[in-house]
């Protein structure tokens, strides 16, 4: 019997290089027909790259793709779909102003001539929706749907195209725990119906909960593959990071110092002018890290912007060291020595085309010593860069190197060097370790802890609950723009925090 029978997908020796990195370094992967196969690995391990190769978004530099025993060339998503391979991306590919059914048929040659036949579409969509328990209203516009429902549309889109293999790229990162349950139930039905699912994740619990088999990737290579039942979380964690995970960082006990930040009954709107922060009040002290936990999109982004002067609140007050700063601009907040480590470091944190040297003075270029009258002082700027590069161990050929050529970890170090060099009184750090490898993550965390010991007040916003729990002194849980409660990090349990993230108010927290 042919060995390849029984495998829906076989990847042999896939190599994909990008300038400066080998994202996939000779990957072999076999996925059995009708299983949920987890691809587990840290950010940057090469999971998404590998799946983009399979879906035809990237051409591999080397290697072979075998689907159902046949060697195939997948050069575009259309060809992938012809081979019945579909993918649900981490960031959805939907047109917000179009309806569900319009999004589903987008790019298909449906109907007669130039005319669309939505009656047929609608029938087929509701048939699929009923079969797999994915209720949607076909004529609703995408922007009116929540993320969970949008994901449902993405899945329907793939099923409408009659895929046999469905790739899900970190599908749970935007979902509430309840929505995750629903998603897992759906995936089970799909598999029972004969589909094969590849599930990309870096969360151990999900692997244990949903998968039949799991393949661990690290730094572009396969570490191992085995049935989920034959492994456990600590094993997976060790394989994923290559060594034992330090679950507790060295953290000195700190005496509570002066109150640095006070937020009083704050309200703010999001980009779509809908309420994003509601009746928010909290205090933050020097020498303290206050972790903000919550599913993304529950007001964290807006909170960080209000505190750094990038967004004007609609109501309420913010005090910094007893001084009102509610309507201060970004520049004024910067001058008051508030540091901001932004979430999207490539978009907000740096100017990719400018050099490291110039990125390091992005917020300080106007004043001495970097600027005298109108003219920039080249020598001072260079000395500043050399100092920062050695203090923060920024690995780059020189300070002239454009920031865009640096790795994520080094870019984050540039941002840290710039934001923390003036010994800020308040640090607003948003996803500070997102996408970084273990070494860089540890460096960032140690830098933040050093600032805490120095007496800085830190607001740490992160989706990584483990990071919040290890780093914080107190944990503030956000849901729907409201504070569900503030817990002491020492005694808080994951269970309790998860419940609050899903909208349960902490006992004793009044409305």
């Amino acid at each position: 019997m042919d060995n390849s029978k029984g495998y829906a997908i076989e990847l042999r020796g896939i190599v994909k290089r990008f300038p400066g990195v080998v994202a996939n370094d000779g990957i072999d992967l076999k996925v059995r027909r009708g299983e949920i196969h987890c691809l587990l690995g840290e950010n940057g391990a090469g999971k998404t790259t590998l799946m983009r190769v399979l879906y035809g978004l990237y051409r591999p530099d080397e290697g072979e793709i075998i689907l159902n025993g046949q060697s195939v060339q997948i050069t575009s998503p259309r060809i992938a779909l012809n081979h019945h391979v579909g993918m649900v991306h981490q960031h959805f590919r939907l047109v917000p102003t179009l309806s569900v059914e319009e999004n589903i048929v987008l790019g298909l040659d449906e109907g007669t001539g130039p005319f669309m036949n939505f009656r047929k579409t609608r029938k087929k969509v509701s048939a699929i929706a009923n079969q797999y328990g994915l209720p949607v209203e076909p004529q609703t516009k995408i922007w009116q749907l929540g993320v969970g429902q949008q994901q449902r549309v993405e899945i329907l889109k793939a099923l409408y195209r009659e895929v046999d293999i469905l790739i899900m790229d970190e599908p749970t990162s935007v979902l509430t725990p309840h929505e995750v349950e629903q998603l897992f139930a759906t995936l089970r039905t799909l598999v029972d119906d004969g589909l094969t699912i590849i599930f990309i994740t870096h969360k151990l619990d999900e692997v244990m909960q949903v998968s039949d088999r799991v393949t661990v990737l690290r730094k572009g290579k396969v570490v191992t593959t085995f049935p989920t039942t034959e492994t456990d979380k600590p094993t997976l964690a060790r394989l994923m990071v290559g060594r034992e995970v330090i679950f507790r960082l060295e953290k000195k006990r700190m005496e509570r110092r002066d109150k640095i930040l006070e937020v009083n009954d704050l309200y703010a709107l999001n980009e779509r002018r809908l309420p994003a922060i509601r009746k928010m009040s909290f205090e933050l002290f020097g020498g303290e890290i206050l972790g903000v936990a919550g599913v993304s999109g529950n007001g964290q982004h807006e909170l960080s912007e209000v505190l750094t002067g990038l967004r004007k609140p609609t109501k309420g007050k913010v005090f910094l060291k007893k001084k009102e700063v509610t309507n201060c601009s970004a520049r004024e907040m910067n001058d008051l020595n508030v540091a901001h480590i932004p979430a999207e470091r490539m978009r907000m944190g740096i100017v990719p085309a400018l050099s490291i040297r110039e990125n390091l003075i992005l917020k300080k270029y106007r004043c001495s010593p970097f600027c005298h009258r109108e003219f920039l002082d080249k020598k001072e700027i260079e000395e500043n860069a050399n100092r920062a590069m050695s203090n923060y161990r920024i690995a780059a050929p020189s300070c002239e190197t454009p920031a865009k050529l640096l790795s994520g970890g080094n870019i984050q170090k540039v941002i840290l060097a710039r934001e923390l060099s003036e010994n800020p009184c308040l640090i607003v750090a948003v996803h500070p370790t997102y996408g970084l490898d273990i070494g860089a993550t540890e460096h960032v965390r140690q830098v933040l802890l050093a600032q805490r010991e120095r007496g800085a007040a830190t607001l740490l916003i992160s989706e990584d609950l483990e990071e919040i729990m290890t780093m914080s002194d107190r944990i503030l849980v956000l849901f729907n723009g409201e504070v569900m409660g503030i817990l002491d990090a020492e005694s808080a349990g994951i269970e309790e925090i998860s419940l609050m993230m899903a909208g349960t108010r902490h006992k004793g927290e009044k409305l």
Partner: protein
Amino acid sequence: MKGHLGFKIERRPVASGRLVFFVSLLAIIAAFVMAGVFFRIYGVSPIHAYQLILRGSLGSRFGLAETVRRMIPLLLCGVGLTIAFRALFWNIGAEGQLLMGAVAAAGIALFSGLPDPLLLPAMFIGGFLGGAAWGLIPAVLKVVLGLNDVITTLMMNYIAIYFVEWLIHGPWKGPTARGFAYSDTFPPAAWLPTIYGTRIHWPTLVLGLVLAIVMYIMVTRTRSGFEVRVIGENPDAARFAGISQLKTTLLVMLISGGFAGLAGVGEIAGIHMRLLGPANISMGYGYTAIIVAWLARRNPLAVIVTSILFAVIMTGGDVIKVSLGLPFQLINVFNGLILFFLIGSEIFLRYKVSFLLRR
């Protein structure tokens, strides 16, 4: 098994200066080859035509002088545009800004009654402000109301063109112009000196060269230049760093519009000595300067070179009209083709394309 030729496209991290130069050169050569097709259609050998253009625009004292005098407005408008483009403000309105500079200067020359020595300085200042004002309107509209800068700057050109038409047919029509749509001739104190026997109004040329250097220093060495580069490269990071989009946009359009206005002053005070039809004042310098700035890759110093190239092409238009009897407008085909190939060639700066044999 027979292989076929495939190609691989990879992102290129940074394009070196040499690569930029060669790719630009190749784009220009490609444009000249394509333009050759048009000469063929007219039954003229392209090689012969290019020889004539080169000889006519650079090979004689007269031709050279004509090339240099056309370079002046291209240089001034082009230098200003590099600054606007660096801040990602797509100023398509240098033509209108040039005309409004000319209008302001003409008004001062004709009606201010200033003492002679003050007249020319006042005209330059007025011309700068006239062009700047015309450029600042779209700048404010973009930052405050979010209106598209391409559309507004382009539309402002038409307002300027018809405003000039109205002036020379109406209130400013010269009693001594014998029914022509001109203003009166300016008093001699409002005439720019020229290099003897040519139409090169050298003070404007010097001004252009100095401003190219000053702007290069501004962009690379000053904090305003730093702000312009940050806004242009990453507007989000600029907001994050507290750089004001309003202030920076106003600054770049003050410069860009103002410099175009100075070009307008040079044209009417150096060549025509009166306000006349918009098409006679400018010949599309403001539009051609867009390509000049783009070919210079937004580097103000490089504009000195690229403005010469386009001046050669414009003078070449005269040559082919006189020597070959071909329409002057053929040079617009040139300009269009160069821009076309230039923008097309940018893929080679951002990506590395390598050919390989697939089996």
